[in-house]
């Protein structure tokens, strides 16, 4: 770890945030500096996602990945947002975020302070963390190193590494981080994942802040950071946490879009889902669950927009599918469906999801919040969240049933169901405040 590496990494992540905020500005997501600050976390995730999706396509097309290419792509993406914003008459005026009365300010300040304090401790753990996770050194980071050293999708490594069908978005981000750090520093690389966690907390808090009282917003967000299964494991240089936060924030954006039909929310959700679908194989399933749930509960007049977003996500997945087909790599879908394993797989997914030892009470509280919202709150919102959750849960059961090699066990060396369930726990953390808030406001829309 060197200060130069940290400074380079910070500059890269700042660039992701600038790119994302430019795109959001172009989509008319905000008009004031205060709103810009509130959406900075979302902007960061959108910028990172757009960069990853763009470079997935460029690498498949054979464009070399290097320092100049990274800078040019970031500038082009940011410029696209600015030009689009100018064309649509976007403005940026003075204005501070609406915070509320004194008790509200105190709760918000306490939430921000506690999250900040914990993330600072995690940063100190991250900056000198050695790379321990098997999957990280078996294929995630080698793929990132290969892009960094060989300027692209080196077929010799990408076709022979374990899980060859996994899309390359996470390795692309690793390779960009190596360029920013000035070398393949696998220790400081953990700080890149710290930035993602900070961005995710900022994105969720920024989106929920105008819709939920802070005493409903902060407990789930703090809890998801400190549940026993996460903590420092959020920094593992693998695609799991990135996929979880992309899908959870996209699901949150669509939940809010169902209420106000703001086009920028749908566009931002499409970018995040496209990135998720290019991060891990199950990302496609997650994106399908979120979009399908939105179709089920949205009004028919909104379907054309949803169709456009779904097509955009589908198009973003194509380049990697073309590359894997060209190199005769199996798609990685479950090869069979052994109904004899169904009951065991269902019990396993259920036990893992409601494991107090892993996720504390978060899934349970979210389930209660969902039921309460069905009875007393916003039924459409609850139906949407319920559909997404059931879809994700069914996907986990399907993966255990469909891969006969997977043992029906929560042991992570035998079955990835615990890592898979992380997406549902992140969803619980961002959905619970919205659901409880709808109950609190006696059926007001989110």
């Amino acid at each position, binding site marked *: 770890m060197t200060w130069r590496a940290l400074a380079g990494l910070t500059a890269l992540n700042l660039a992701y945030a600038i790119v994302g905020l430019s795109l959001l500005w172009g989509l008319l997501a905000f008009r004031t500096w205060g709103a810009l600050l509130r959406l900075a976390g979302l902007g960061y995730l959108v910028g990172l996602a757009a960069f990853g999706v763009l470079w997935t396509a460029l690498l498949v097309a054979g464009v070399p990945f290097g320092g100049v290419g990274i800078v040019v792509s970031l500038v082009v993406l940011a410029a696209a947002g600015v030009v689009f914003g100018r064309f649509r008459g976007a403005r940026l005026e003075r204005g501070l975020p609406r915070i509320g009365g004194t008790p509200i300010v105190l709760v918000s300040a306490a939430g921000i302070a*506690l999250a900040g*304090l*914990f993330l600072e*401790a*995690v940063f*100190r*753990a991250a*900056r*000198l*963390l*050695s*790379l*321990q*996770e*098997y999957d*990280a*050194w*078996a*294929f995630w*980071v*080698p793929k990132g*190193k*290969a892009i960094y*050293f*060989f300027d692209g999708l080196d077929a*010799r*490594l990408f076709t022979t*590494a*374990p899980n060859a069908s996994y899309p390359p978005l996470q390795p692309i981000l690793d390779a960009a981080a190596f360029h920013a750090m000035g070398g*393949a520093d*696998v*220790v400081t690389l953990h700080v890149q994942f710290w930035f993602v966690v900070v961005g995710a907390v900022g994105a969720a808090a920024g989106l929920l802040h105008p819709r939920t009282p802070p005493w409903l917003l902060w*407990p*789930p967000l*703090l*809890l998801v*950071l*400190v*549940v*026993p299964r996460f*903590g*420092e494991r959020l920094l593992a240089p693998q695609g799991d946490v990135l996929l979880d936060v992309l899908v959870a924030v996209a699901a949150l954006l669509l939940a809010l879009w169902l209420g106000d039909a703001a086009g920028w929310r749908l566009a931002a959700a499409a970018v995040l889902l496209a990135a998720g679908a290019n991060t891990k194989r199950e990302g496609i399933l997650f994106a399908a669950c979120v979009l399908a749930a939105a179709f089920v509960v949205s009004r028919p007049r909104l379907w054309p927009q949803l169709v456009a977003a779904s097509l955009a996500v589908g198009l973003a997945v194509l380049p990697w599918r073309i590359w894997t087909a060209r190199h005769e790599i199996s798609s990685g879908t479950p090869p069979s469906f052994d109904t004899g394993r169904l009951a065991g797989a269902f019990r396993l997914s259920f036990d893992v999801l409601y494991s107090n030892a892993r996720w*504390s*009470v*978060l899934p349970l*509280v979210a389930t209660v919040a969902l039921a309460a919202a069905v009875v007393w709150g916003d039924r459409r919102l609850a139906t949407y969240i319920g559909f997404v959750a059931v879809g994700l849960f069914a996907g986990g059961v399907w993966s255990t049933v469909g891969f006969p090699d997977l043992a029906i066990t929560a042991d992570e060396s035998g079955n990835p169901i615990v890592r898979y369930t992380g997406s549902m726990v992140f969803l619980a953390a961002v959905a*619970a405040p919205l659901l409880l808030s709808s109950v609190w406001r006696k059926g007001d829309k989110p």
Partner: protein
Amino acid sequence: MVVAVVWLYPKAFAQANRTARANVQLDNVDRQLGGGNSVLPDQAIAIEARGRIPTHGTFAVAVGPRQPEWSVLADPGSLENYMRYFLLPRRINPSAPWILCFACDRSAFPGAQPVWEDSAEGLAILRRPP
């Protein structure tokens, strides 16, 4: 939920601090090797290989029968995956001039000479004649 946060937050915060302190105390080799410490029979073969094989070079990994001192994770697949990760941009090639030998059958590489050896663990770096 607030009770859960009150209960778990101090534990997670303390754990993050413990990890930070433990990471600071690691020496640079341990930090660089990371998971390799659980897989490799000895750190030295990875460090020696990184120092001896040119960055544009190629290497092969040959693994023989498990030795009593090796960890349960030291199987052929894990050793090859780890060395590939650790030694990039050096590439794996079965006919490479450099052979990382983990108690391997050296007669399978006629003419290859050891350039580094740890006989206690059965480890060696072999070099085929040009």
